């Protein structure tokens, strides 16, 4: 077993087990804890898959940002030490069976697929998804240039650059921020008469 395989196995198992633990935990604080583990080891899997920037983003945004947000949520809504909103075992079992069914369906499909082989790295030493070192191509693609795909094949550029989503997502984040802050803040005046 190579080192990479070993690391993959460790993190894959960690990811799955802690995801399961999220499902099975009965208190929300434990769920949050297991979620951190799961998402963190997913980031490790990303690194293993040569997606270094995505892995870093996962750690920063997901584990560092989103999860902290969730933990805030936990703290804000925990009304007392006794509150434990449990789930009946039966429900979990039924949901689990359904989940297994879904898993089966997915693997009945993708099990036999012969995946398209990747195009080997371009001559210009700019890495593709397969080779790693993706920071520069990713950054360029957000500006709309795709040297990884377009430099190799002497034709006019045809791969998609991602300038537009990169910009439009900022508008989206702005809107979302406005919406979330509206919902979360208290009304300054008295609320209108309940209808």
């Amino acid at each position: 077993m190579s080192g990479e395989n070993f690391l993959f196995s460790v993190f894959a198992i960690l990811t799955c087990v802690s995801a399961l633990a999220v499902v099975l935990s009965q208190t929300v604080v434990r769920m949050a804890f297991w979620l951190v583990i799961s998402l963190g080891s997913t980031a490790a899997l990303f690194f293993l898959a040569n997606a270094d920037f995505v892995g870093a983003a996962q750690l920063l945004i997901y584990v560092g940002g989103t999860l902290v947000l969730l933990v805030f949520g936990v703290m804000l809504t925990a009304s007392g030490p006794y509150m434990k909103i449990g789930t009946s075992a039966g429900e979990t079992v039924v949901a689990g069976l359904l989940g297994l069914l879904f898993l089966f369906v997915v693997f009945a499909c993708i099990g036999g697929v012969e995946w398209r082989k990747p195009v080997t790295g371009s001559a210009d030493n700019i890495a593709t998804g397969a080779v790693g070192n993706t920071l520069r191509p990713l950054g360029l693609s957000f500006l709309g240039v795709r040297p990884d795909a377009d430099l190799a094949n002497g034709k006019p550029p045809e791969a998609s650059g991602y300038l537009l989503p990169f910009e439009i997502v900022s508008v989206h984040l702005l809107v979302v921020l406005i919406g979330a802050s509206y919902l979360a803040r208290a009304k300054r005046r008295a609320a209108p008469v309940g209808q």
Partner: protein
Amino acid sequence: MAAGLNAYLLVGAVLFVCGVICMATKRNGIGVLMGVELVLNGANVNFVAFSRYTDLGLDGQIFSLFVIVLAAAEAAVALAIALNFYNNHLTIDVDRANKLKG
């Protein structure tokens, strides 16, 4: 090639399924939102894996980056709504969301 694509896909699918189960069984609203994160994360594992092993290439990683950002945005709004629900109902138990039915 190490690990292999299908192994990654299996991890992704497990995360996805765990997320769905989490959404379907947790009565705590925050817990449900954690399920959402798991689901999106499962899909993300897929994208990164495809990016490594197929000629989806860098597109897959870009996709997953956007997903991370959008998931953060969604989490923010969802959390705000959950807090709002909590303010109105004084509980975060989603089973108490039972006024609207029929």
